[in-house]
């Protein structure tokens, strides 16, 4: 992999990010809706208030002027402020980021921790009972939408059994071990719902990647040399099989930042996803723009990382 290639890739990222920002901005500008509609519908508030707010926030300017202002401010590190709360957008995002990282990050971790061993075991013993059971469960897992499993868990564990809280709070008043216990109790359902959903599809990828490798000649050679089964699986099979899986996981990283719209809404997890939803509902364009733009940048960035990783993991692949 040449240095030239990396530089070229980095330079190519700039026009694509720029293009994304143009598309996002114009789509948001064209979308129906108005951040001050609630004011307009309230007879106690004179229409002049909404009108002067529109003028003040520059909403009456043509789209291209608004885009120009936005771009200029963005280049200077000013993300704009939310119409709904009149707070700087980056403050809002930073407030939500820790929760998002903890919950969604833990869910991804859970997904990987479940998917790897199960996928490898199923792949090395294709069509065994274990494989069949794992396969069936994986199918069930990714066929059930998170809003269904989420509600199911709430009904069983919160309403019927009364074991777990159904609302996620960031302000647990407990301290010490009690805090960890309560945090564990409130996180377990959202993490399980998300993690198992992601894990289910990941199991299928790992299994098929292992299946591809397991019958290759070099594995047979390794076995015939008398290496133990364990070492064959770990050192020879998994290492090769993981290459596509690693790329897949890298490409999922932006999702961690983006939060999980549905799951966050169900459990009231105050992550980026729920920020995005409430911003969309109130037509709070600066927030929607900032969140979607950051997400697109992350997607572009992790695509780049995945490409680099791929070349590093498998030296046979060369870029020119």
């Amino acid at each position, binding site marked *: 992999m040449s240095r030239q290639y990396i530089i070229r890739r980095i330079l190519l990222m700039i026009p694509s990010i720029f293009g994304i920002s143009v598309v996002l901005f114009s789509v948001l500008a064209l979308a*129906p*809706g*108005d951040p*001050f*509609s*609630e*004011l*307009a*519908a*309230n*007879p*106690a*508030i*004179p*229409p*002049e*208030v*909404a*009108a*002067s*707010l529109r003028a*003040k926030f520059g909403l009456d300017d043509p789209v291209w002027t608004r885009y120009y202002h936005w771009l200029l401010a963005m280049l200077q590190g000013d993300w704009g*402020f*939310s119409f*709904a*709360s*009149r*707070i700087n957008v980056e403050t*809002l995002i930073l*407030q*939500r980021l820790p929760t998002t990282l903890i919950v969604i990050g833990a869910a991804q971790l859970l997904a990987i921790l479940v998917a790897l061993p199960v996928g490898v075991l199923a792949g090395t013993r294709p069509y065994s009972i274990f494989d069949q059971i794992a396969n069936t469960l994986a199918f069930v897992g990714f066929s059930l939408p998170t809003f269904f499993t989420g509600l199911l868990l*709430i009904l069983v564990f*919160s*309403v019927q059994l*009364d074991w777990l*809280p*159904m*609302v996620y*709070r*960031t*302000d647990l*008043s407990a301290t010490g071990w009690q805090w960890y216990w309560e945090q564990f109790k409130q996180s377990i359902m959202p993490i399980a719902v998300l993690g198992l959903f992601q894990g289910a599809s990941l199991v299928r990828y790992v299994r098929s990647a292992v299946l591809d490798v397991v019958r290759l000649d070099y594995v047979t050679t390794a076995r015939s040399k008398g290496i133990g089964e364990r070492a064959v699986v770990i050192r020879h099979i998994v290492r090769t099989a993981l290459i596509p899986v690693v790329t897949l996981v890298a490409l999922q990283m932006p999702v961690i930042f983006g939060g999980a719209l549905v799951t966050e*809404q*169900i459990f*009231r997890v*105050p992550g980026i996803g*729920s*920020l995005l939803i*409430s911003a969309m*509902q*109130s*037509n709070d364009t600066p927030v929607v723009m900032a969140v979607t733009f950051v997400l697109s940048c992350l997607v572009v960035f992790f695509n780049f990382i995945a490409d680099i990783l791929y070349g590093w993991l498998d030296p046979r692949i060369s870029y020119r």
Partner: protein
Amino acid sequence: MAKKGYAMNERELRGLIDSVKTGRLSRRGFVRRMLAVGLTAPMATQLLAISGVAMAQSPSTYKPTKRGGGGHLKVLWWQGATLLNPHFAVGTKDQDGSRFFYEPLAGWDANGNLKPVLAESIPGREDGTLAADGKSVTWKLRKGVTWHDGKPFTADDVVFNWEYARDPAAAATTSATYKDVKVEKVDDHTVKVLFDQPTPFWALAFVGAQGMIIPKHLYADYMGAKSRDAPANLKPVGTGPYMFKDFKPGDMVQGVINPKYYMENRPYFDSFEMKGGGDAVSAARAVLQTGEYDFAWNMQVEDEILLRLEKGGKGKVSISPGGNIEHIQLNTTDPWTEVDGERARLGTKHPTLSDPAVREALTLLVDKDSVEKYIYGRTGNATANFVNNPEKFRSKNTKFEFNVDKANAVLDKAGWNKGGDGIREKDGKKLKFVYQTSINQPRQKTQAIVKQACQKAGIDIEVKAVTASVFFSSDVANPDTYTKFYCDLQMYTTTMTQPDPELFMKQCLTEEQATKANKWQGRNITRWSSKEYDDNFKAGQAELDPVKRAAIFIKANDLVITNQVVIPVIARHAVQAMTTKLHANMSGWDNNTWDIQDWFKEA
């Protein structure tokens, strides 16, 4: 009672007020009669006050005998507060959140009486604080009140709030309340609100949801265009029972007890959290079924579900009548012909709805009782008035009727005859209407009920549902907004957030007609125009005598109903859920948290 069953003239009104004065009629009885003719409860009590009958003090139900010790209060707003400056509050969620920290001079209770908060007493005619000419009102402020940072609360703070809110550069959402009044400091603990005209409804500034007072010493440097930069926007410092701890917009508001709160033994809770996000049904569950939270706001949930959740006995639903009214509007202009880039343009006439017989038939075809019984349950009441009419006060004189046979007879008589397809027509014009509303399950069910009845009377209804975020937007480019009204019939809830009906009744004025010229910002959506109504309204605005003025507004309501400008369907109540142990007084005329200092839990 006079014509049409519900008008009440000035003389009768005076008679009633005299009866209250002499004790022949209870205050409650008077308020009930006012509600029946379409006035609000606060308006009724204001009427009594200005006629020299003092406001009733609502009896306190507060039981705790010491401050604090109540633990942690957990409340759930499924739309979280996004800002905590009451002058920029966009919806009730923001006002409710601000009310934990900030307080008005007085608040409205459920019966429309004023309850003093930062005021020492309620102004009245007896001690001269309410001017006889209705041009000023003097508020005496409580002494010894301090802001959370220890600075004293004085008349300067009150005067400052008026200056802050009326500044056009600030674009405060409370500006309508303050821009037309003048406020003077009399001494450190007395302020005087002056009106240009005699103002029978004197308790708007510094009262209720729009009346919360912010500290001068923290906001004085952030007036007008600089308002967004005030640090106190994010860290409120008020006079209220709880002090600020943490705020995450849209997610969480937290506070702790104010140990120096000026009311004895209050507040009860040591701390509180107001959590936002999620949806109404799961919020109802978290209170009524699991008891994880103590209170949940705005239960826009079908009554059937609420009843089922209540069965566990952990929580109850609290219903308070207010000024929300679900109604059907009848277009007076022609929505199907485009003139100069504008449909439903002034000057055009609706081809079929302009016939009074058709309008009358439509009013007879809305089965309000079924809508109440099968859709809204306890959360709404069928109503005949445009201005609110809660169930327990429902007049026997106001009547609405659901009668398909009568509707058929009316249409037959007017010459609308059924064609081969079963749809009535006259002069080649068919009775086919498009009936739009926002996407919302109860509304779609109501549409179905109306459509079915209309079918039986030979009227063809095409129902249309628009996403709420589009329907209620003021987007000039979109043809589906409610203000454009590019169809024959439409239905939504209009809110009366302020207790005085003057602003509310503005939405039927000719000068308020929504047109392309005013970017459809006019409030008169039906484009109905009546000289009689306009003259009556103007007379009401200029009327010096509060009693005459009240009679005029009763007539305004009467005109809207008898001319079938709109068909009122359901008076929708404010519905909240709380655990059985929580005591929280709700009022349809003020914030949900208007009485937050008195909230407590039974041990």
